[in-house]
């Protein structure tokens, strides 16, 4: 008998391996498509909030795992990125709190590594100092400030991601900014 050999199933098209086949209009996006379109953005967001590239990658994975489980709740397909951002922000806050708790009880005394490709020595020094200060700021305050000044988000969008009012976002940003200026000068 001649051996029957077939390639394992792909998406049913001849599309090159790197481009996921887009979903049909109105259809829920496939995981591959979701991942390839948004993973880089979520990764960039996370590294700007937490600094450490390994932790950022971890959060990317946890974000999409949560997305897999919660995909049935996604109704508005045009808001996928916003939905993923909310999940990622929540996960960043959780990890920042965990890290602060560990530092408080002395289980973690190391400084987080910062991913800053292409930074000059001055910029590296500034970013290290900045994240050292941010490590001491409450997680929700830190995230609001990071979304505003490191990720460039609008206040209204930050309020949506952090599930709080615009006034609360402004208060948190101001509080964090004061802490930073006290530590690093102006």
């Amino acid at each position, binding site marked *: 008998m001649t051996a*029957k050999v077939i390639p394992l199933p792909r998406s049913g098209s001849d599309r090159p391996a790197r481009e996921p086949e887009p979903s049909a209009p109105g259809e829920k996006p496939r995981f591959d498509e979701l991942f390839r379109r948004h993973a880089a953005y979520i990764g960039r967001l996370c590294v700007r909030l937490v600094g450490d590239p390994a932790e950022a990658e971890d959060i990317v994975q946890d974000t999409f795992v949560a997305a897999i489980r919660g995909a049935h709740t996604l109704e508005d397909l045009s808001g996928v990125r916003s939905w993923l951002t909310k999940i990622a922000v929540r996960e960043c806050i959780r990890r920042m709190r965990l890290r602060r708790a560990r530092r408080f009880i002395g289980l973690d005394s190391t400084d987080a590594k910062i991913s800053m490709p292409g930074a000059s020595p001055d910029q590296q020094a500034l970013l290290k100092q900045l994240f050292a200060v941010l490590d001491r700021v409450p997680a929700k305050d830190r995230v609001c400030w990071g979304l505003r000044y490191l990720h460039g988000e609008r206040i209204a969008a930050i309020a949506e991601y952090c599930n709080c009012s615009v006034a609360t976002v402004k208060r948190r940003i101001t509080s964090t900014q004061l802490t930073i200026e006290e530590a690093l000068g102006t």
Partner: protein
Amino acid sequence: MNGLERRIDEAKECLDLPLDDAAIDRLRAGTLARAHRRERTRRTVVSVAAVLALGVGISTLRGWPSEAPRVATDERSGDATRPILPRATEVRVTRDGRVEVDGDATGVRTREATSRRVVLELRAGAARFEVAPHPERTVEVQAGEARITVLGTAFIVEHHEAAVRVEVVYGEVDLDCHGSSHLLRTGDQRDCANESADAPRSEGPRDGRAHESVLSSPRLERGERPSSRRRIETPTGAGDWRDLAAEGDFDGAYRAMQAPGARAVTDHPEELLKAADVARLSGHAAQAIGPLERILTQHARDPRAPLAAFTLGRLHLDELGNPRAAAEAFALARRLRSDGPLAQDALAREVEARSRAGEDRVAQRLAEEYVRTYPTGTRIRSVRRFGGLE
């Protein structure tokens, strides 16, 4: 905007996480693996909670194995072989016939384990197999309609509903698919359908890159394979040692190589590798060093050079007791082909070698690199252990 704000505004552009296609693939696979693990854990927790709530003993619940794993006994050593579990598990058959498992899963069983024959069955999921060569023992892995006979190698088997995929990391395997035999060498990959349906053949990617496939379960880590395999034509009227080696008679081949008048080993990487295999598999590990080092010094650009370096590392570490030399060889294997199919294993084994050589700090640094680069790597447990990350 004050001075500090301006400086932060300029510096923030450097805060980035560059993710190329390979990194995206890695993260995607890691995400799927994580999702599956958590779902399994969730079901187990729910099951345990249900048992406690009902106040009954252990029973067959959803997600639990439906039968106890079988255990076979090695006749020669008398040791019971442990049941092995799939899902990116690492399975090792040692030189003395023991079957060792790193990781856990539920789809691999030992069907037979004697001094002459070891038969493992992969019922579902994926596992990486590494088999220590032994001239008098055959090792076979069964998965679906595929029968993989090991000839001293490391290979990956993925058993899916539609087909079984076999990929050879290094060495050779004989794949029997529906009664047809296929010899797979380093870098080769072949699918064996689980149904008798006409379908196009798959000999491997045309462009030398691993197949992209939409799988419900995560794939094991793999890198690019050589884009072409240069087959060296051995001289006509080749000497007996080559024929004996091809038949698996490595003792006879080694004797033939030493015999007066025997045709010399030619200076081709493929033949040098064969000569090294003959020496190793006939129990003359030290004699294998020469041919392997020749490849690395004279044929460093050959696609087989990383394999030669890797094999040299294994020789030094597993058989000659030279962990420092082994570490250098594994490091060279990675330098020669940092994105090749051996890179992950070479890094893992370098961690072990450095640890055994007493270079704990280097081992730890390399272990951290492994964990960062291959978060779902098949050797992650041993790397954590040797790298002191536990």
